[in-house]
């Protein structure tokens, strides 16, 4: 037995040695290197204060809402695990592989998206406003690597209502309103679309061995095979699905429906008491020639430009939020700071959101309103904390130790962080007071 084991071990060792000896050609390609470097410059800009001689105006609510909608829908992608489904994908492995390759390698893409929703939704006012705004819209999209998106919204007469050009690498967005000649430049805190491409989120789905084949149908005049990827979302704990349509001849992805028709059928949307909204992406074209001018972040001649800097969050707002959270948890700081955007705490919050205001406690009302406020500002959660940390504190210096601390306890620290250019730490106590504390006086060791 020993001899056999030694032989096996030698075999793996030999394979590892051979593997390590493999000759590797020069790489990566200059194109990839340039994309990576370009993407990285955004990170450095992230860490620098935005210098503006610009006027600050109030951000247009509708634009923010649309962005929030896109983010929320996009956030669903990728948080899944699979449920058993008929083995429909394997017979079309070549088609799926070809479609995936095209998505991965696309440097330009154009497509249309139609949004729809159930009117029976009885969520909070803000959610209704958001849904009303985007429902029934058709938008024309274009993508160009690295990370540039163009999003044209049409009005009811099919005329261009607005054009949004987003640079997801440098985190800027220019919105043009041709009818009144206005242009607004936004500085974003997070990319609203995937920098690596519009359908990259679909790749994992297309690679799933549990894809269900939906048969063939005509999509925009092309015969296409349909595939469904169905799963339970961990974030919101319900069933979700995506339907994909791949041209039977060219093997290109030609349409995607989110959620799939098993969850929400837009033709029957007004008959159902569904909580879901959805969209249909179609007329997808990979590799069209797109002029750089389509993605220019310079306002065209004749437009009045207004500049909206990135949202700035103050320390006071963060402290206030901590207090609101503690109030919500029966005046005791929770074990860890919840994100409120997924999992158990999100479920609980959603439950409260559906209740009439009068039936909620004051603490629940405050949290619901606060979370909603920051959601509409398109800030990644929880609340204002992430945005504040990104802009103001030394990376990795945030530490939360609030478990069990009573709101009002002036003797116990809830959390601390180190502001940029500061040698001491800002310690937040249970009574929401803040003190400057030296590293050696903190209750736990910190990295300097």
């Amino acid at each position, binding site marked *: 037995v020993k001899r056999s084991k030694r032989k096996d071990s030698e075999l*793996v060792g030999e394979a590892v040695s*051979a593997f390590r000896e493999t000759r590797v050609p020069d790489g990566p390609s200059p194109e*990839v290197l340039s994309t990576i470097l370009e993407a*990285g410059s955004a990170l*450095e800009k992230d860490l620098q204060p935005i210098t503006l001689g610009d006027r600050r105006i109030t951000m247009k609510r509708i634009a923010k809402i649309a962005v929030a909608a896109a983010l929320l829908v996009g956030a669903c992608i990728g948080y899944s695990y699979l449920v058993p489904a008929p083995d429909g994908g394997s017979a079309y492995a070549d088609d799926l592989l070809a479609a995936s390759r095209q998505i991965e390698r696309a440097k330009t893409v154009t497509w249309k998206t139609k949004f729809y929703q159930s009117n029976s939704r009885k969520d909070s006012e803000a959610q209704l406003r958001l849904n009303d705004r985007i429902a029934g819209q058709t938008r024309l999209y274009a993508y160009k690597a690295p990370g540039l998106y163009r999003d044209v919204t049409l009005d009811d007469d099919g005329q261009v209502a607005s054009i949004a050009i987003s640079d997801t690498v440098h985190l800027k967005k220019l919105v043009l309103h041709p009818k009144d000649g206005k242009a607004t430049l936004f500085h974003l805190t997070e990319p609203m679309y995937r920098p690596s491409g519009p359908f990259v989120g679909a790749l994992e789905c297309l690679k799933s061995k549990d894809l269900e084949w939906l048969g063939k149908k005509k999509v925009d005049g092309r015969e296409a095979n349909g595939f469904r990827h169905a799963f339970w979302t961990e974030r919101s704990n319900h069933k979700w699905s995506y339907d994909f349509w791949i041209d039977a001849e060219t093997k290109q992805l030609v349409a995607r429906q989110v959620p799939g028709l098993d969850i929400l059928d837009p033709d029957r949307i007004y008959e159902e008491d569904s909580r879901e909204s959805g969209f249909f992406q179609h007329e997808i074209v990979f590799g069209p020639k797109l002029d750089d001018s389509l993605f220019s972040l310079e306002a065209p001649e004749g437009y009045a430009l207004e500049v909206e800097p990135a949202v700035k969050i103050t320390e006071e707002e963060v402290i206030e939020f901590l207090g609101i959270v503690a109030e919500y948890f029966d005046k005791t700081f929770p074990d860890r700071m919840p994100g409120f955007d997924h999992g158990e705490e999100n479920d609980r919050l959603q439950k409260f959101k559906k209740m009439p205001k009068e039936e909620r406690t004051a603490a629940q009302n405050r949290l619901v309103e606060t979370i909603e406020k920051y959601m509409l500002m398109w800030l990644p959660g929880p609340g204002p904390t992430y945005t504040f940390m990104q802009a103001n504190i030394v990376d990795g210096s945030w530490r939360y130790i609030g478990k069990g601390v009573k709101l009002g306890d002036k003797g116990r620290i809830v959390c601390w962080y180190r502001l940029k250019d500061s040698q001491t730490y800002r310690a937040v106590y249970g009574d929401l007071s803040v003190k400057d504390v030296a590293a050696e006086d903190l209750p736990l060791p910190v990295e300097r």
Partner: protein
Amino acid sequence: MTDWQAVVGRYASMVWQIAYRLLDDYEDADDCVQETFLAALQVARRQRVESWPGLLACLSTRKALNRLHWRIRHAARHEKPVDWSAVSSGEFGPEENARAAELTGRLRKALPELPPQQAEVFCLRCFQNLSYREIARELDIPTGSVSRLLHRARARLHTLLDSVVSEDQKESSP
């Protein structure tokens, strides 16, 4: 502040080598490098990166293994003939080179058969020489788990490689 240009300059070659060795395909490796650095950027936006080489080795290994896994599901359609020249070395004769190429190919096929975390630990330890502690930090697992996962990965690879080799011997027997 992160000097991204320096990070890319210093580690692009390392990431490329990890990707290429695992994938044995120029375009796939190119894509893998891009995905790795873009993913690393996302990490850097959210938290301080303690070790760039560790993070990049981990991300590139994971992404390359994912691609290998995808390939194995479509093995018949993605079969690539062994590139004998890829392992050629002046130190060995043609037979040794052929065996090395064969073993490398077998290893690429065997790795996606392992549970993902076992495969990652194995690659990071055996190909990248990361310490148990570094692997534990990058994968956010206890150091003891690294040792256990590595042991299981080796055992499973023994079986997988041995069965392949045995089959080959059987086939070549008269």
